[in-house]
């Protein structure tokens, strides 16, 4: 009796399961379609293109050409700008976030800072550069005003067009981004931990050195890496500010694609893009690992 009944039950369970399966799949299908179309497909096209020469023949020369001095130079420039803007942005952003986190969680300051950060973290490209040029550009309002009062902010040339200028402008979206991504980590720090440190006779230094510091360090490092990737891949801001020259990698890629002097090398541009994808992938993997470690204590 029981033997005869078992297969029937199993069949019922199987049919019920197979009826539900396609639906579970459908829920994530848009995500996979999106990832496939906008992440994997372009990466594949770039990877394939980086292996071809001008006539479409298979070659590895694009990767050996990456060693040319002018490409190394723009790579170093990109790295310096990204590291500088990530470090300064992370420090300033973390301090602002700390100020906000210690305040009233439902207060006006917090609401203003978080919503403003949400806006400014996305404020880049043409609008941002225009804002800077209109304010402190060579003929900007503030610059001219200061000049009229005997203060020249560009005594040795317009540094706004140099690496330092680009770093400064990047900071405008790096700091708000840091506030946004670091605030949750700070919110995870419980006041009780500080109270516990103090009741055990610890000083503020002990608290930061042995409790809050080690807890926040992975989050801080992870967010800094995110900022690095953010600056490393930024294109529009630099392209609008420096309308010529391949100073940083994204501009160099765009330069290699178009040329009316017969100097275009789309294959090399794609190899360069692939190298950038590899770097950003490594950085984002490290970020994920650090985030995982952070979430062990802070949630």
């Amino acid at each position: 009796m029981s033997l005869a009944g078992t297969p029937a039950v199993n069949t019922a369970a199987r049919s019920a399961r197979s009826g539900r399966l396609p639906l579970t799949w459908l829920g994530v299908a848009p995500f996979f379609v999106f990832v496939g179309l906008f992440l994997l497909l372009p990466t594949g096209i770039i990877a394939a293109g980086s292996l071809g020469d001008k006539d479409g023949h298979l070659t590895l020369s694009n990767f050996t050409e990456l060693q040319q001095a002018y490409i190394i130079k723009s790579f170093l420039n990109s790295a310096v700008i990204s590291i500088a803007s990530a470090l300064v942005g992370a420090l300033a952003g973390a301090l602002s976030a700390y100020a906000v986190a210690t305040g009233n969680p439902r207060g006006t300051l917090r609401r203003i800072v978080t919503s403003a950060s949400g806006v400014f973290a996305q404020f880049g490209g043409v609008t941002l550069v225009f804002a800077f040029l209109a304010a402190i550009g060579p003929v900007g309002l503030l610059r001219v005003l200061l000049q009229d009062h005997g203060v020249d902010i560009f005594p040795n040339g317009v540094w706004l067009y140099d690496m330092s200028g680009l770093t400064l402008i990047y900071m405008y979206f790096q700091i708000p981004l840091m506030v946004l991504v670091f605030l949750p980590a700070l919110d995870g720090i419980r006041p009780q931990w500080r109270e516990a440190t103090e009741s055990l006779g610890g000083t503020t230094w002990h608290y930061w050195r042995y409790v809050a510091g080690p807890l926040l360090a992975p989050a801080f490092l992870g967010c800094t890496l995110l900022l690095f990737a953010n600056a490393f891949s930024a294109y529009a801001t630099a392209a609008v500010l420096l309308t010529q020259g391949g100073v940083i990698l994204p501009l160099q890629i765009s330069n290699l694609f178009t040329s009316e002097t017969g100097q275009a090398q789309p294959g090399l541009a794609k190899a360069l893009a692939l190298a950038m994808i590899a770097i950003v992938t490594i950085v984002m993997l490290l970020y994920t690992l650090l985030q995982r470690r952070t979430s062990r204590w802070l949630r």
Partner: protein
Amino acid sequence: MKFASFTRHVGVAAMAFLVVAACGGTSGGGNASCVAKSAKSVTECGGMDALVAAAKAEGKLNIIATPPDWANYGASIDAFAAKYGIKITSANPNGSSQEEVDAIKNLAGTSSAPDVVDVGLSVALANTALFANYKVATWNDIPDSQKEATGLWWQDYGGNMGVGYDPSKIPGGSISSIQDLLGSGFKSKVALAGDPTKSNQALNGVLMASLANGGSVTDVSKGVDFFHSLKAAGNYVPIIGTAATVKAGTTPVVFEWDYLSSSHGKDVSGWKIFEPTGALLANYYTQAINKEAPHPAAARLWEEYLFSDDGQNNWLKGGARPVRQAAMEKSGKLDAAAAAKLPKVTGTPVFPTADQQTAAGTYVKAHWSSAVG
């Protein structure tokens, strides 16, 4: 009045259609005395009167990418239409050289295909299969290096690479040598008109700087070194000099073609152009007739007009140097008042070949980032 003009136009168009249709694909347009389509000169067409008659019978001319304010083209268009009663259709005024030859290919066989083109030399060299052989009556006035021996193309007007500047923004109010630009009064003022790794005009700017610093058309390195010194002095700005940046004052000194630079005069009063002695780098545009021109006689008559004294002086009035300038100066036919407005030059201009341009481009691409980065 309006109705009469309308009927006349319809009549002319219908007649042109009949003539073209009657001649079919064998002999091309024109009347019995002038087979314009295969005529290699005005004599082969039976003389000027026969060419004019044939062109009038066609009644129309299609030109492309020639805005009226570009090198004063408008004056020639109006004068030609008035003189011969031929209606000119000017298509895609702001098109590029490549778009002009694309139009020849894409509109082939239709009545709206361009009859003539005015293109950059490199585009002309790459598309000679599309052009007819024709030599204008003033052919001998055109220097040999500026024409194709069988008449596939010939240059029309152009100018030299110069340094345009706003005298009110620089020390002393004038530039007398390229070395001046390295002075402390030029902080963040000097720009190129493009990115030399991809823009032809900017590349020629670097090439001109090379000529002015002991380099040659085959050695652009001195120009790259010069811009490196400019950068080190804090005088170079890494933005593209355009009408907008000149007007805003962010690029008061720009390396650019003199015939384009002169147009900044309408935004910046007193705008001047300096062309260094011994570093004259020339660039001329190129005329060619569409081999399958829908109006072959009008196309040839138009070229005769452009290369007549009147046509050449019209370009001159637009700030461009017409190709017959030297010959007309000798014969006294040059518009002296217009010529006096051109930037002063001394020496013989050099014309870099396509190969020399490519070689310079390759060098600049490899060295530009480290020079000004």
